[in-house]
């Protein structure tokens, strides 16, 4: 009996919500009929039937959340098949199907048949005390914007699909409803133009949040970020402010290839006049985005698509994280692992492996790439005398290069081993699943590097 499995409807979708069934048991469907609405991590999508037949069973109840990709959700008997007696809807079923029918997928979605490596959600120490609640990074970012927009009428958000579509990655979900189209503004696809327009609005006294659908597209706008936003205060002798936040996902996503997978952290971090932030967990995402919006300076706020759906504990109370302060996510005495953004998850994973071998790694999340918190890095180096930098990005002229230079210049006497960098491979990111996996930074490589600097 042909079953339809919950399809991955975006490159990073791992689970979804079965928002609504549009068919009932016993209904006859034609090919192309919409049978259900599925809420993904990005949007609500309609699921269509590939082949016609009679609905025999709905295996997942409407409203069910967290349905994993690949879970059978409906059974449709083909026109030639005997239709058994109707079965009640149930939450799950065995996988002993005779035939599997995948719902129609776009090519990019098919690419995600194998889900991205699930990164464990790690509860990090040193988060603020007090009551917390579990939130995704996506929700935390949204809340940060909403809270700051409530507090300051000059804050507005603009970008492609931020309003009516509710955000290409759903980060701005609900903002249009609350704040209206004056403050949540859909732009044409015109990155250079709207980055410039936003920068001009900041010069004119507003506090824009400019969303790039991804930072790859901000290459079109980088002139305004650097030449117009970052340099104005200096060139005007301190007269002209430019309080603006450029935000959006940065770095590799999942199987989207070279032009959509790049970490711009090192690019922006090299520019005086910019603040560059790249948070890892949801609490930092919220606290740092709030700080970024309040900052009187231009901020490049680098998010990560693969982290959007991950959940962490976020303080319920007002939560603003200071810019320019790194965080020790895990204390250790044998080796220091320095990272930021999604690399922190890789470092924490490596630290867990190393702990089993008796190597206690200290993991530092830089959180802000400019200004860089040298003091926290050097203090940890003084303690462990060994350091590895973990970066989801290219090795050359990277944040890793910068950390190594800092360790050489200011921590030379504390070094018992050369500082190593574990990064992506120095090639454009390939598409093929095996090549992509080989190109991206991996916890195993971090473990190997840590052993090397510990001479183990």
């Amino acid at each position, binding site marked *: 009996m042909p079953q339809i499995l919950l399809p991955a409807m975006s490159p990073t979708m791992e689970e979804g919500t079965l928002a609504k069934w549009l068919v009932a048991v016993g209904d006859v469907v034609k090919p192309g009929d919409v049978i259900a609405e599925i809420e993904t991590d990005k949007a609500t999508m309609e699921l269509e039937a590939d082949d016609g037949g009679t609905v025999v069973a709905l295996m997942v109840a409407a409203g069910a959340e967290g349905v994993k990709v690949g879970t059978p959700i409906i059974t449709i008997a083909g026109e030639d098949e005997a239709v058994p007696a109707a079965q009640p809807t149930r939450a799950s079923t065995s996988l002993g199907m005779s035939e599997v029918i995948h719902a129609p997928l776009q090519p990019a979605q098919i690419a995600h048949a194998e889900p991205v490596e699930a990164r464990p959600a790690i509860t990090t120490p040193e988060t603020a005390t007090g009551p917390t609640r579990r939130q995704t990074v996506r929700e935390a970012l949204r809340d940060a914007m909403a809270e700051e927009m409530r507090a300051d009428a000059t804050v507005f958000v603009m970008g492609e699909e931020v309003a009516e579509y509710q955000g290409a990655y759903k980060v701005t979900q609900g903002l249009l409803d609350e704040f209206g189209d004056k403050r949540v503004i859909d732009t044409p696809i015109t990155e*250079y133009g709207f980055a410039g*327009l936003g920068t*001009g609005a900041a010069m004119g006294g507003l506090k824009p949040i400019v969303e790039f659908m991804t930072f790859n597209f901000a290459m079109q706008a980088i002139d305004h970020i650097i030449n117009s936003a970052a340099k104005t*205060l*200096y060139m005007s*002798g*301190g007269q002209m402010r430019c309080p603006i936040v450029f935000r959006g996902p940065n770095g590799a996503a999942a199987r989207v290839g070279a032009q959509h997978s790049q970490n711009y952290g090192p690019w922006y971090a090299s520019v005086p006049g910019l*603040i560059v932030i790249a948070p890892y967990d949801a609490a930092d995402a919220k606290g740092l985005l709030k700080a970024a919006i309040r900052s009187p300076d231009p901020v490049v706020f680098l998010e990560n698509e693969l982290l959007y759906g991950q959940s962490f504990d976020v303080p319920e109370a007002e939560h603003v994280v200071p810019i320019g302060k790194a965080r020790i996510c895990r204390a250790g005495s044998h080796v220091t692992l320095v990272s930021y953004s999604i690399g922190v998850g890789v470092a924490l994973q490596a630290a867990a492996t190393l702990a089993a071998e008796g190597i206690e790694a200290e993991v530092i999340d830089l959180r802000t790439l400019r200004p860089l918190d040298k003091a926290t890095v050097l203090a940890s180096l003084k303690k462990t005398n060994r350091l590895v930098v973990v970066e989801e990005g290219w090795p050359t002229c990277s944040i890793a290069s910068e950390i190594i230079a800092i360790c050489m210049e200011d921590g030379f006497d504390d070094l018992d081993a050369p500082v190593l960098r574990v990064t992506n491979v120095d090639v454009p990111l390939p598409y093929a699943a095996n090549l992509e996996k080989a190109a991206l930074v991996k916890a195993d490589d971090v473990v190997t590097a840590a052993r090397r600097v510990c001479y183990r």
Partner: protein
Amino acid sequence: MTNLARSTGRKAATPPAVPNWPRPDEPQRFVATREQLIDMYRQMVLIRRFEERAGQLYGMGQIGGFCHLYIGQEAVVVGMQAELVRGDSIITGYRDHGHMLACGIDAGAVMAELTGRAAGISHGKGGSMHMFSVEHGFYGGHGIVAAQVPLGAGLGFAHKYKGDGHIAVTYFGDGAANQGQVYEAFNMAELWKLPVIFIIENNQYAMGTSVNRASSEDQLYRRGESFRVPGMQVDGMDVLAVRGAAKTAVDWVRAGNGPVLMEMKTYRYRGHSMSDPAKYRSREEVQAMREKSDPIEGLKKTILDGGFAEEADLKAIDRAVRDEVAAAADFALEAPEPALSELYTDVLLGTY
């Protein structure tokens, strides 16, 4: 009074098929009072003398880097500024000295910026191309060709967002008019009915490339039509024509009708920058323009022929302006350079 190629505005050009969306009326040449005439004359002479002096200081090695003079184009900014009010925003490219003077910014502070002194309006950290005065609504002074166009649209966005009734004016050249971001800005400005006046100061040469060699549509006032931004072509060598058009454009934009594009047909007498030998045009061409179309001489004739003032009155203005510019130059040469500690200030406002 001018013989610029196609300078007589829309009457001379083949009339475009007028689209059926609303547009401002045909501008009328401004009818000025004596005070208005004298004031515009004084401002244009101030810009002319200031720029001549800047050119001399550049030649003496007192001004470094790039220095783009506005000589010949004075009528454009003077005619435009006369129709703006305090609180409106203006922004331009790197040929910005004249705009600053027309905004009422102190000539000494501008000249001291050119000489790289602490008393310069950017404390010596900006230079000729990067000057700002938020107090005077002057938002630069931008060195990247056409960057000021979306920035200016953003200033207009801020006015609309705040609902303060003010408008933004963004000046750019015929060279900048070929940058893609100009059209991104036109699109958003019209889409969102932003209170912005886009002004193309068409001085006929983008550095050394004439408009005809660089622009498939060389009637630049039409460049906004596919975005439904109404365009008008103005004799930019006639300050009264500019002011009349400015009035029409300002009224239209301030009323909430969205942006307007003005093409000002003008001419720069000097090279693109001080280091430009200007081999791409003949001496005769420049000379003919100076003799037949000079904006200051033109206004002077209007004033004298109309009996608004005597030759002696204008000479007195000329003298006063010369003294003002001489004082500005002296100030700029005597003022100290910025303290070395200034190197590290104004990078960020916040403390992190």
